[in-house]
């Protein structure tokens, strides 16, 4: 019983974090059909903001809010610096500028802060554990689950019930048509980047909460996770990204529990092997995005 509870909590907390990462990536992809390779650096920005404000004596929650605000700001900045100047020109150009921007941010962190891990302040509660039905579990896992439920619900509400959200969904299926109805392209794109930055900021704090330190390359794993989750779930669907995140967490956690010590270091090889199988079976991802808008 205790084991089952432990397993479920592990899957849900890892899955919640993966789902939020994937959602932040797919929101941009849905609208611009471009993977924002600088997405992982938004998580890095959140981490270093925490590190840099750690000496300020502010309450932790204020530092966390500030870190999320910085991630949002850098999300919007990514749009202005890497996407907007070349958006209309070519897909290749935008791919390269988003890579370049990612590199630039990472190297700025290397140069101005340090290549070595830096401690990030964490509240007491992140290192505490509780016992639920016989399973000892870190409180931060429960916080991650709660945060992902709240955020997924909030994003669902935004995308379904508000004019901005509906306009963003419309722009994701047919950008030109949305513009022909008067939906301003720049507003939609900047909102998508802001939302993406917001999710990256929150997930960054939860993610860094597992390790307690931030390094310049911290964004790589979340970017990879988000990318794979969206590929499994379906690049064009928000719910697909969330589903892909949870599925990836289920695969990872199951492997963690079942693989022997010797094989555990090859866990990623097993995970990616399964991902390849899933893609052979369903090349367009498990959840199909909206139809292309053509007539019946």
């Amino acid at each position, binding site marked *: 019983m205790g084991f089952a509870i432990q397993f479920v909590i592990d899957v849900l907390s890892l899955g919640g974090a993966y789902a939020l990462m994937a959602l932040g990536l797919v929101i941009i992809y849905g609208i611009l059909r471009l993977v924002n390779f600088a997405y992982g650096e938004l998580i890095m920005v959140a981490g270093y903001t925490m590190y840099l404000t750690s000496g300020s004596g502010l309450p932790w929650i204020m530092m966390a809010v500030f870190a999320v605000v910085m991630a949002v700001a850098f999300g919007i900045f990514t749009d202005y610096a890497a996407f907007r100047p070349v958006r209309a020109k070519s897909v290749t150009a935008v791919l390269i500028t988003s890579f370049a921007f990612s590199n630039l941010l990472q190297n700025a962190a290397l140069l101005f802060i340090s290549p070595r891990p830096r401690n990030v302040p964490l509240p007491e509660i992140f290192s505490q554990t509780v016992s639920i039905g016989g399973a000892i579990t870190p409180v931060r896992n429960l916080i991650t689950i709660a945060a992902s439920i709240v955020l997924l619900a909030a994003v669902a509400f935004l995308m379904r019930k508000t004019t901005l959200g509906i306009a963003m969904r419309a722009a994701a299926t047919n950008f030109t048509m*949305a513009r*022909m109805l008067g939906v301003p392209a720049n507003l939609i794109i900047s909102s998508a980047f802001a939302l993406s930055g917001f999710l990256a900021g929150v997930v960054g704090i939860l993610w860094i909460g597992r390790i307690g330190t931030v390094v310049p390359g911290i964004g790589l794993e979340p970017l990879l996770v988000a990318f794979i989750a969206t590929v499994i779930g379906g690049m064009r669907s928000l719910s697909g990204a969330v589903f892909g995140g949870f599925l990836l967490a289920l695969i990872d956690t199951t492997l963690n529990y079942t693989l022997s010590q010797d094989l555990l270091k090859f866990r990623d090889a097993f995970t990616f092997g399964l991902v390849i199988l899933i893609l052979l079976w369903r090349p367009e991802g498990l959840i199909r995005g909206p139809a292309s808008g053509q007539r019946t």
Partner: protein
Amino acid sequence: MLDIRDLLVNYGTIRAVRGIGFNLAKGELVSLLGANGAGKSTTLKCIAGALKASGGSITLDGTNITSASPEQVVRAGLATVPETRDVFPDLTVSENLMLGAYIHRRDRAGNRDNLERVHNLFPRLAEREGQAAGTLSGGEQQMLVIARALMSRPSVLLLDEPSLGLAPAIVERIFEMIETLKRTGLTILLVEQNVNQTLAVADRAYIMRLGKIVASGTANEIRSTTDLSAHYLGG
């Protein structure tokens, strides 16, 4: 109302529209006819702001909208219904209509009245309000894109081949609806392949061939004096 002069549109090195000019007076229904590849849809997309003109001018009610963005064009009072029948398939019918009124989103009362008017025009859409637009039939989707364009309260409506790929009975109803819209005083530019039905509702028509206007006149003049098959079949 709408005045096009010396319009040039290129797709890369292909010159799709080669210096055409035409105009629409207020309340007029003007048709642009021609075979596939004549440049009709390109002209419409360019007026709508979705394609950049390489030369010439587009004036809407005295305002120059030649290099306006699609957002600016619809705000200026010109709505476009593209031939690709672009409903937002995963959005419901009412969400699609709500987005049509995006530029008036603060005027909730006005939108409610307008929605009622649109529902009267297309009772079918009222029935299907909560349904995803992608699940509608082709004819219903066509009604939805026209209704959605009307939600922006345009003074000029561009319709690109509304009858394309629809059953004859539905085409009949689409044309009836176009006549109803014309009676409300809306200025309409109708691009069509369906020559006879179009000339029956249009006040005037222009015939395009290979990016140029080769004939123009009132619907009757076009019908009696122009050898349409020549323009369509490339004779």
